[in-house]
């Protein structure tokens, strides 16, 4: 008996719905975690720029933890570990308000923030120190010099690696499956276990992941062209 490759079985009725629900969840999770990662990443970079040793150590520790502990473990820590430290009412609130989505967002976002922080920091380090000193000498404060002079240039340089991080973040959302978030991979496994059409189910998921990834890359290329400055 040969294997008959037939997509119709997994692309009809409830299974199509499951894929679409999964895709929506994956996109929502990616967007939420991305916003958290960018905000947190930039905040971390700014903290690290403050010339105060303990703060620098804190950020370095944060980055090392998130880069060196497997992401799946980080997700489990947030899902099973952190809530048990909270008081009971808070725990129950999380449990009824889609805790798995919320905690997966936090885990993925905070981990990606470590990489974002490193990318932005390398962007900042590529801007000559003299620019910062020049800005300070004409009266900008620390935040002013950063916000108006250094960061706008640094972010441009950081765009390509940040697009990379976005791609990784998008694909890493599939790990949220392990804590019961109904994202694309979770739904794909479900379709598979109902239909036993392993190749078909994963072929559909692969096509969806590829399409979105190409979309992110195209956006990145466009943003990169728009932001390009002849002087940098």
């Amino acid at each position: 008996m040969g294997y008959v490759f037939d997509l119709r079985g997994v692309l009809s009725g409830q299974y199509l719905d499951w894929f679409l629900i999964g895709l929506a969840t994956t996109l929502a999770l990616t967007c939420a975690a991305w916003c958290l990662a960018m905000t947190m990443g930039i905040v971390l970079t700014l903290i690290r720029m403050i010339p105060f040793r303990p703060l620098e150590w804190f950020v370095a520790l944060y980055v090392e933890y998130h880069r060196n502990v497997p992401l799946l473990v980080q997700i489990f820590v947030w899902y099973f570990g952190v809530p048990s430290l909270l008081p009971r009412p808070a725990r129950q609130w999380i449990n009824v308000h889609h805790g798995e989505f919320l905690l997966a967002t936090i885990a993925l976002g905070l981990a990606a923030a470590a990489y974002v922080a490193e990318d932005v920091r390398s962007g900042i380090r590529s801007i000559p120190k003299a620019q910062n000193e020049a800005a300070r000498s004409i009266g900008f404060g620390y935040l002013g010099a950063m916000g108006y002079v250094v960061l706008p240039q640094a972010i441009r340089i950081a765009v390509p690696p940040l697009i990379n991080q976005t791609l990784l973040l998008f694909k890493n959302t599939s790990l949220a499956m392990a804590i019961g978030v109904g994202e694309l991979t979770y739904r794909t496994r479900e379709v598979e276990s109902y239909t036993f059409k392993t190749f078909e189910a994963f072929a559909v998921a692969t096509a969806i992941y590829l399409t979105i990834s190409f979309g992110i890359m195209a956006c990145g290329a466009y943003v990169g062209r728009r932001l390009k400055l002849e002087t940098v």
Partner: protein
Amino acid sequence: MKLISILGLAAILAGAATAGNADQLVDIKARGKLICGTLGTAEPFSFQHPQTRQIVGYDVDICQKVADSLGVALELKPIAVEARIPELIQGRVDILAANLGYTPERAQQIDFSYSYFVSQQKLMATKESGITTLDQLAGKKVTAIKGSTSEQGVRRLIPTAETVTFQDTSSAYLALVQDKVDAFCASELSLVKLRQQSQAKTPMVVIEKSLFVEPWGLGLRKNETAFKDHVNSVLANLAGTGEFDKVFSKWLGEGTLFNIKRDFAIEAIKG
């Protein structure tokens, strides 16, 4: 286009793995060993013995009987719950003895031997939650192992409940203990074991009424009539000579944690 051809190639390779076996019974005898896919994580069916580190249990003993009847050695291959049917179809194992409940969907993919166990699928909740009947679960979160019949049973029989699935028993159980879900659906035996283990810290209640009853069979590839007939005759013979009851009482009967009596017959599963 390239993607499609790669996928096509993968599909052909998968097909090649299953094709070519003229008669599995002959192949197994020629090879001199029976490869049995089993979970390795489900006491008392298939689990690692704490001292010997060997995988032992009810499923393993049944597989051993099949191997003995063929005069070949038994090789156990531990497999994950959701990989059971793909592993069998792709020819990496000869037979599945892996808590495999009968469903019509599965019966389209693989053949089932006579039932060798009948499982009561029940639900467990924390004592604190006050849940003691199935009706109370409407609209609640119910967990089950990903890809299990329990998952499908919950969807079918408690349609208002939200199912949240996990990879393994320990994650699902942890989610129940931490109130992330309201109930856990699994076979009565695994629930009894979990309840016993959590007695001291988090008392649990197993809801008396079964959600559904599930006959288990050994999983066999389709169109292997000779092998299937042989396996069925081995099971029927074990039941006839009383050997079967010995295996049953060794793992599930008096003196074990489960302490149950055999209340089912070894017979063809009615679809």
